[in-house]
């Protein structure tokens, strides 16, 4: 049998080849066109993030500047006492002079006053955008500047509130439900009386109840001394929830110190400063859940109960931030989060 072989190797340009090449070129051009727009998003985020960082640095690390345009030899850092006068140009900063990260209370208050003066309300960020260079011919950003308690997270924000229940600092429009850049700074505030919700030197043998709102910004117990080392001494801290209509109530002990069994007081090991913020806030979450599950209703009164036996203590609460240091000395300060949120718009 004779096999006849037909060889087709004359280098034809087949339809397959044309289709394949077309798809490749189409894909190549498509990706080439598409790539810049993919990274535009990331580029935009880098740019917005940098703006949030810039504003946070200018506010927390710099005291600000002022200058008298009519007499340029008159200038300085204390813009807070000059900004409302004639011919004054100024840029606000909140830091104490020479103390980056430590906020001046006067500067903070005048920053709010200036925002109100130039914008008409705290929610209007026009002046802030202008003074921090957030408006340019090519880009425009909105900004929200808030002071939060350190217990806050990016998804659970709790504002620092003074004793009147007002936010210590919230400037700018509400944060929208879109892509934003957020930059956090830890700042040190002075121990201003309006920032300390409760401060009490507690004597021996006391049941001390403080009505409070949770989550707390800061809670501090200072054990100082005892009046009798030959008797047991202890401290117990509870979170108590009550419904004032039904009078249903429940509590949980969140912190205990000392020995409730022995007959002596080991004051050497007990003396010191005890931060209780996290114990109280986490304890509150548990008690709240127990209360609602047990009684099928919501509590309308929240309190912290401090029970002390044979110890002299100081107890302090704040809704502004963590209390660092002994409040009876000038070392004490309140640490909060200054959060700058920027978005395009």
């Amino acid at each position, binding site marked *: 049998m004779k096999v006849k*072989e037909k060889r087709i190797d004359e280098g034809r340009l087949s*339809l397959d080849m044309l289709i394949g090449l077309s798809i490749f070129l189409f894909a190549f051009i498509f990706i080439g066109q598409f790539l810049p727009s993919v990274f535009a998003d990331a580029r935009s985020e880098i740019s917005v993030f940098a703006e949030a960082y810039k504003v946070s640095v200018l506010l927390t690390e710099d005291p600000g500047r002022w200058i008298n345009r009519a007499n340029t030899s008159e200038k300085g850092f204390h813009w807070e006492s000059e900004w409302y006068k004639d011919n004054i140009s100024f840029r606000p900063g909140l830091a104490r002079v020479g103390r980056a990260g430590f906020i001046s209370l006067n500067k903070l208050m005048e920053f709010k006053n200036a925002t109100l003066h130039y914008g008409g309300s705290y929610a209007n960020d026009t002046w802030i955008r202008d003074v921090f260079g957030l408006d340019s011919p090519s880009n425009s950003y909105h900004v929200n500047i808030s002071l939060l308690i350190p217990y806050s997270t990016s998804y659970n924000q709790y504002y620092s509130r003074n004793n009147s229940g007002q936010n210590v600092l919230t400037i700018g429009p509400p944060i929208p439900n879109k892509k934003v850049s957020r930059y956090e700074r*830890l700042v040190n505030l002075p121990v201003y009386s309006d920032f300390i919700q409760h401060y009490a030197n507690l004597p021996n043998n006391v049941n001390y109840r403080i009505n409070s709102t949770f989550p707390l910004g800061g809670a501090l117990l200072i054990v100082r001394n005892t009046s009798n080392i030959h008797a047991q001494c202890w401290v117990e801290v509870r979170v108590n929830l009550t419904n004032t209509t039904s009078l249903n109530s429940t509590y949980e002990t969140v912190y205990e110190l000392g020995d409730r069994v022995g007959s002596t007081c080991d004051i050497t090991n007990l003396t010191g400063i005890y931060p209780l913020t996290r114990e109280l806030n986490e304890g509150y979450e548990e008690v709240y859940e127990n209360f609602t599950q047990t009684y099928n209703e919501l509590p309308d009164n929240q309190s912290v109960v401090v029970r002390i036996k044979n110890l002299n203590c100081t107890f302090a609460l704040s809704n502004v931030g963590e209390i660092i240091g002994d409040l009876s000395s000038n070392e004490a300060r309140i640490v909060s989060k200054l959060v700058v949120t920027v978005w395009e718009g």
Partner: protein
Amino acid sequence: MIRVMSDEKGQAFTLEGITAALLILIVTYTLFESSVVVSPIWSEYGDIQLKQLGYDVLRSLDVHRTNMNLSACPDTQNITRNSLQYMLIQLNTSNPQPNQEFLNALDMMLDPSIKKRLEVYWVNQSNNNTIEHLVLINNTPIPDAVGVSRIIVLYPCDVTSSSPFYGSFTNDTALAVEVRMILWHV
């Protein structure tokens, strides 16, 4: 008669070729359209914020003296007990541990989800300028950890003979101690 067409040369396998090309196209499109764009900024974003937090914490703890009294040096009465300075001068060579007030302040400012390692480095000026170090909080960091540091200046009169820094001074020169904190999320 059997007729064989030998056309293997220079042929594209049409269906497979088109399928493969479409597959590449779809994968590429999906990758770039997805919300997670693999870009350096995503990993750095978390690092920058954690690093900033670390620097802010160290700055907050660098509160120095509440009232300067050089004639009473070491003036431990006027040094804030939760400060970096006090933490350093109270260290004992036999068992170098940070004091409780310092640890309390540190923990109050750092979320429990952030772990830390604390080290101090200094130059021993009286031993051929060798670099010495101590580990004060000994946790093992993960590769994504970030490091922050702050320089604290100690004076010869600040420390006692039981201090690890005692033998590192020459004459009356001050000693720069680097406090290095390594942070990471757990």
